[in-house]
């Protein structure tokens, strides 16, 4: 079971590279934010998976924090793009 | 002896010098007081003239940047690069830091 979780994590990491490529290529800034958002989601998924892989409940707290707070960063960038603030 | 600083190869005592200075000051002040009385000049007597014309107060005062002209003139070849080095650019500040870091690392690294 454990190595399955690890392999899933590897896959998620490989998918993250697509997000990075999008950040590099992204013709407009919203594209880059989309890339960041994708990485965010994947990282949270990876954190949950790895938490299970390490059999440590305490690690999941990190994922919760991340899920709650990556939103804030995204909102700030979006707000800037809107031109408000 | 209090007040005597031994430096290993030399010696210095401010108190004795001060004592001598006081004595000498008394003597010299005695001589000084023999002279004529001091008068605060007024009118033309106390003013500097340039080619016979009176000068404005601001012009009398030699500006700080003009002072030591001879020195900077003589050492122009030293000062020009030195002034050029102080660009005020933060990149240069960091650059100097990096350069010194490199040199110190080479020296301390024993290469």
């Amino acid at each position, binding site marked *: 079971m454990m*190595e399955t979780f690890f392999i899933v994590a590897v896959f998620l990491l490989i998918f993250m590279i697509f997000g990075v490529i999008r*950040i590099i290529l992204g013709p407009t800034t919203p594209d880059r934010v989309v890339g960041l958002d994708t*990485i965010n989601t994947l990282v949270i998924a990876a954190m949950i998976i790895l938490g299970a892989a390490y059999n440590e409940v305490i690690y999941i707290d*990190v994922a919760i924090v991340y899920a709650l707070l*990556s939103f*804030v960063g995204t909102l700030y*960038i979006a707000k*800037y793009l809107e031109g408000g603030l | 002896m209090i007040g005597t600083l031994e430096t290993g190869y030399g010696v210095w005592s401010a108190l004795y010098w001060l004592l001598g200075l006081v004595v000498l000051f008394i003597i010299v002040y005695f001589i000084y007081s023999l002279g004529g009385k001091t008068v605060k000049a007024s009118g033309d007597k106390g003013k500097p003239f340039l080619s016979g014309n009176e000068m404005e107060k601001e012009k009398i005062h030699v500006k700080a940047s003009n002072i030591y002209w001879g020195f900077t003139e003589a050492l122009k070849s030293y000062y020009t690069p030195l002034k050029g080095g102080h660009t005020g650019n933060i990149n240069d500040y960091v650059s100097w830091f990096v350069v010194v870091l490199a040199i110190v690392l080479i020296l301390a690294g024993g290469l």
Partner: protein
Amino acid sequence: MTNFGKVISVIEEIIQILILLIIIATAIMAVSFKDLLAAVISLAATSLLLSLEFYILQAPDVAIAEAGIGAALTTAIFILAIKGTVRREEL
């Protein structure tokens, strides 16, 4: 058991290499983008993956701190600063 442990350790190493590569890639992007907003986005990604790296290096305390501070607050502060100044690098 040894075989099993070996597989896991190999996978862990692969994970780490991937994360480190992405960290360096995003860091290079953060340096090279002319658009400061994009640079900040890359920086956010860097700190995000740094947090994951801390997580994998068995430091959940630090990972939480890096997540909270790197993802949310640093980005917020940078965005506010860019708002207060200019967005393009050459100006």
